[in-house]
């Protein structure tokens, strides 16, 4: 085959696919939900604060934990029938992270910080990469559109009624004007939403079809704010713990509450604000990157559906961003921890040196 024939064939295939995707295979728009959706409702319906539900991100977190545990248990069994390739992989990864910790925090402290940093890096990297596999965000159950507060969504799709509910060719997207009903409460709100739903779905829903949306069983865990926030809370609490056990409670507290003078007091106050800001910045950095990546991938995939060449570029970007965010989370935890256990200021160095060897 000549090169020209291949290029012409590829262009023709692209053109035909674009035409097919807009005319024949009209896929539905992806419906983007910011919050995690409940899979099992133990008490309440997922709307209030104290409702106990199992979200799909929680279920995915359990699945990712199981996968990570199985993988690293297989790595750690070196004296059995498992081939030695996995053990080399595990050793290389842990060696890399250990060298990184030692290079930033010093020998002794590096070994102390290694478990948290390695866990954060490995778990977040696994979770981010697993959320790019085909099973995520695609298989789930059908949630019908209702008029109650927790069942109401602004966008929905029309599903075929029986058989396996797949979003079929030529599926209709339905947009419901729910904005007018937000100021009402109680019965009036339900009635208002019902009329809005009827108004939006008239003529578009045939016999045996249902209106609702797909709630996926598996959803990337860092797209829900709770997971990055929990990582951030653990990191910040452990940093404080390490600082207190290294320096002693009063010396560590004197970084934040310092009565030596007005300027020192102000600096200490700013330091404590910075500690709280670490919570927010850790969680929002991971959450924002991953959520934006998921929305970007969904939108790009369904933009021109059969010709997903553009999506491949963003897929590569998401692979890269997932790994980088995991590395950045671990590295920033390490840097802040090594700052927290260090004695600050050159005027304290003479007294600090003999005490440092006595500590731990």
């Amino acid at each position, binding site marked *: 085959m000549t090169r020209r024939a291949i290029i012409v064939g590829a262009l023709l295939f692209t053109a035909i696919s674009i035409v097919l995707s807009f005319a024949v295979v009209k896929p539905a728009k992806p419906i983007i939900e910011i919050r995690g959706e409940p899979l099992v409702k133990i008490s309440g319906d997922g709307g209030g604060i104290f409702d106990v539900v199992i979200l799909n991100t929680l279920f995915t977190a359990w699945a990712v934990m199981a996968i990570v545990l199985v993988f690293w248990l297989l790595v750690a069994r070196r004296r059995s029938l498992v081939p030695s390739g996995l053990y080399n992989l595990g050793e290389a990864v842990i060696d890399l992270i250990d060298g990184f910790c030692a290079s930033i925090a010093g020998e002794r402290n590096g070994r102390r910080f290694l478990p948290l940093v390695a866990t954060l890096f490995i778990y977040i990297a696994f979770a981010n990469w697993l959320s790019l596999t085909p099973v995520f965000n695609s298989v789930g159950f059908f949630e019908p559109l209702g008029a109650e507060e927790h069942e109401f969504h602004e966008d929905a799709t029309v599903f075929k009624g029986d058989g*396996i509910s797949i979003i079929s060719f030529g599926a209709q997207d339905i947009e419901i004007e729910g904005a007018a009903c937000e100021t009402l409460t109680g019965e009036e709100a339900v009635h208002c939403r019902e009329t809005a739903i009827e108004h939006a779905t008239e003529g578009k829903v045939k016999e045996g079809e249902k209106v609702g949306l797909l709630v996926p*069983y598996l959803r990337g865990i860092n797209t829900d704010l709770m997971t990055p926030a929990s990582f951030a809370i653990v990191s910040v609490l452990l940093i404080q713990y390490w600082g207190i056990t290294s320096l002693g409670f009063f010396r560590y507290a004197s970084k934040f509450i310092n009565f030596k003078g007005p300027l020192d007091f102000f600096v200490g106050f700013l330091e404590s604000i910075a500690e709280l800001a670490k919570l927010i910045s850790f969680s929002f950095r991971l959450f924002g990157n991953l959520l934006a990546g998921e929305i970007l991938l969904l939108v790009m995939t369904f933009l021109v559906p059969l010709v997903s060449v553009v999506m491949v570029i963003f897929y590569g970007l998401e692979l890269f961003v997932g790994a980088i965010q995991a590395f950045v989370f671990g590295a920033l935890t390490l840097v802040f921890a090594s700052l927290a256990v260090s004695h600050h200021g050159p005027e304290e160095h003479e007294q600090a040196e003999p005490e440092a060897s006595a500590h731990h």
Partner: protein
Amino acid sequence: MTEPRKPKLRPMQGFPPSVQLIGIGWYVAICIILGVVGGVFLDRAVDTKPLFTMLGLMLGMVMAFWGGYLQLKEVLTTIGSGKRGEKQ
């Protein structure tokens, strides 16, 4: 290694690596879809709603990635030996 017991099936041997990669993509997608469809059918028969679907999903995923990994190793060794033999 000892002598091979039977020759390995290599259905895509003559094709260039790009065509072999198309095969891997379709294989992964079909494995996952068959796993999910099988799970849903078992759910319809036994009426346990999400259990068999998820098991089918997991099984489909494991088969897809394991088979995909084996095929990818094939493709990578083809590319590697090709590079060492002649400049492609």
